[in-house]
């Protein structure tokens, strides 16, 4: 039970982690993440890396959609821009991989800002549809430009660090997870700054935000750029992880996946992006496991797996929107409140 939350300074009130317990548990979680690769098998490491990449991308989308209120169905295509940037730099220029990742982020941010231009004229669903258009056009570019290897795509060498090839999930884990953690921390801190608060103001009521002196044009494009930067870096990590980038790697359904992830996780909360992406990535694997248990009794169970997966994916979106619009983060907050108030109110 928590007795009180007495804050004696603004800094204390704004702190990301406000109690000692919170800080110590976070440290513990960090420790778990550090020990994890040594005890887990390659399969679980692979999944952990995939989750981390998806978390990074979903957090980016959350900045745009959850915090600024601009819906985008272009996140997967933006990841594609990042992945191709990394692959091209790796193949043609040969710059070290941290530079490539930053360049991927920067290029994607630029592309994102251009795609964000229609947001000045249209919003809401029209914007969502405009971003679908942008993904179709980006896909066309990927599939037809000689620089991006046309339909065959690009196969690239692994990332190199201090003369070592990073080509195993175990090694990549040490790149992907810290970068994702840094990106999450960055996003959390963003909303303690003027820029982040401006985003929230635009989301809540854009006209009032403009009256308050927030230039909409600049901040909407900034939001697009930051969100795309996240997608670009996530795409770059994706490229290093799979090392083959083809136009078919980033279909529209993946954009829907990321939007679904932040809906299920909880829009407009950092935790939501993390929980949602982890949850949505793991659901298919868990389903496979469950269906595996049934298969001795129902030999056809495996054949039904893909349809079930598709149905569950849709049902999760619909179910969360109707019954728990705040997402997993809200469920989490409820559990937390319960313990805060326990045993006085149950």
């Amino acid at each position, binding site marked *: 039970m928590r007795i009180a939350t007495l804050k004696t300074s603004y800094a204390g009130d*704004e702190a*990301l*982690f*406000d109690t000692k317990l*919170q800080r110590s*548990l*976070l440290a*513990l*979680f960090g420790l*778990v*993440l550090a020990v*994890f690769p040594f*005890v*887990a*098998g*390659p*399969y*679980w*490491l*692979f*999944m*952990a890396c*995939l989750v981390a990449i998806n978390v990074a991308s979903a957090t980016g989308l959350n900045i745009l959609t959850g915090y600024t209120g601009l819906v985008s169905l272009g996140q997967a295509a933006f990841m594609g821009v990042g992945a191709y940037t990394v692959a091209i730099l790796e193949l043609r220029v040969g710059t070290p991989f941290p530079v490539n990742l930053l360049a991927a982020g920067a290029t994607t941010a630029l592309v994102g800002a251009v795609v964000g231009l229609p947001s000045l004229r249209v919003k809401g669903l029209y914007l969502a549809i405009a971003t679908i258009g942008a993904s179709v056009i980006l896909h066309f570019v990927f*599939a037809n430009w000689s620089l991006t290897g*046309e*339909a*065959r*795509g690009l*196969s690239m060498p692994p990332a190199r660090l201090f003369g070592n090839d990073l*080509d195993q999930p175990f090694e990549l884990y040490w790149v992907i997870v810290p970068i994702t953690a840094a990106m999450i921390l960055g996003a*959390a801190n963003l*909303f*303690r700054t003027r820029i982040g608060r401006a985003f929230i103001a635009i989301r809540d009521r854009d006209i009032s935000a403009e009256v308050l002196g927030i230039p909409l044009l600049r901040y909407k494009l900034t939001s697009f750029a930051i969100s795309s930067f996240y997608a670009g870096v996530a795409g770059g990590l994706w490229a290093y992880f*799979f*090392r*083959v980038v*083809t*136009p*078919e*790697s980033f279909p529209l359904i993946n954009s829907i996946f990321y939007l679904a992830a932040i809906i299920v996780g*909880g829009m407009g*909360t*950092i*935790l939501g992006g*993390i*929980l949602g992406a*982890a949850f949505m990535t*793991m659901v298919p*694997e868990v389903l*496979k496991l469950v269906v595996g248990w049934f298969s001795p009794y129902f030999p056809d169970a*495996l*054949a039904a*797996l*893909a349809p079930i*997966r598709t149905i569950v994916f849709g049902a999760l979106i619909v179910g969360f929107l109707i019954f728990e619009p705040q997402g997993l*983060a809200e469920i*989490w*907050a409820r*559990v*937390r409140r319960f313990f805060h108030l326990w045993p006085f109110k149950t």
Partner: protein
Amino acid sequence: MSECWTRRGLIGLAAATSFALVQGAQAQAQDDIVLGASVPITGVFAFAGVGIHAGIQDYLKIVNDAGGVKGRKIKYVAEDTAYKVDASVAAFNKITSQEKVSLYYGDSTGFSKTINPELERRGTILMAGASFASELNDPKKYPFQFMSGPDYTEMFGILMRYIAKEKPGARIAFVYSDTEFGRDPIEPGTKLAKELGLNVVERIVTPPTSVDVSTEVLKLRRANPDYTIFHGYVLAPIPEFITQAKQMNLRSQFMGTFWSMDNSMVQRMGEAADGFMGVMPYRYYYEKDANAPMLDKIRQMRPEYQSNAYMQGFVTAMLMVEAVKRTLEAGKELNGTNLKASLNTIKDYDTGGIFGVPISIPGNSVPVGRIYRFDAKAKQMVPASDWIRL
């Protein structure tokens, strides 16, 4: 912000991920040889995946019932991938972490390309798969992979060699889908056509989502080819294409490549199927007249029709097992290099009649095939040429 950025959230994640502690590498029970597989049992490629899955299982059953290879059984460990590359790689990681895998079956071109560096690093696995991509037919770049048939360019080669013999200087058109699969043999195919003295008059791309092909058919009519080769499709939009073209009195002969050649798929084309031709490296399930003991065995095991994907899985398993056998007989260690070397020693090898002629595998592919034509009366694909070797 502190409200959402909670410690428990992070712990929850930790709990979720610590499942890993339970999963360790399992020790292998005996000295079984393991054939791992990423099979698309569900999803868009399911029709093939189901057949492949059954084909591999059946051949391994035959081998294991006969005592295995030098007394060692072959164990088949498969995971469904729904034809998604990341799921495929996940399956590969899962299977290789639990078993000592020597053979692997991959489900897509994307997977074969993605996993190749990992295969080279491990050097312990020989892999084949459902992809006949021309790119994979390069022993230097893909030293531990092979395909149990001609690659897509070689399929085009077989078709065009047939065309060149039937009608020298014929006008041909390519119709292909705007995917990696579809575009694969188009450039080399065009070059090859020139060498064979054929005239490629039109190359038509269809977007993968297209429903209505009227415009494309109009283009085809304007080009007025003698032969039209479809590539990159399973079924749609081939039937509508042919139907409309026939209505326009187009006298073109329509042809397909391996994945659109399954008998049950061609039957689904309805009237358009009549006279449809294409290239097949294997005999069909129902060919009784041929001297093919293996087909008899298959018909015994499975009384109902089996697809060409089944044959592909079956024969792939056969070639893999043959490579294992030759490696063990030579007293060598089972690793990628030795397995591939043994595979390449296969010369004039009789597959029990599944390939119509004895085959050799000099590189990564088996460049053999025969032209079949659909007979509307028999509702079957029937041979239209001899076996053609490139």
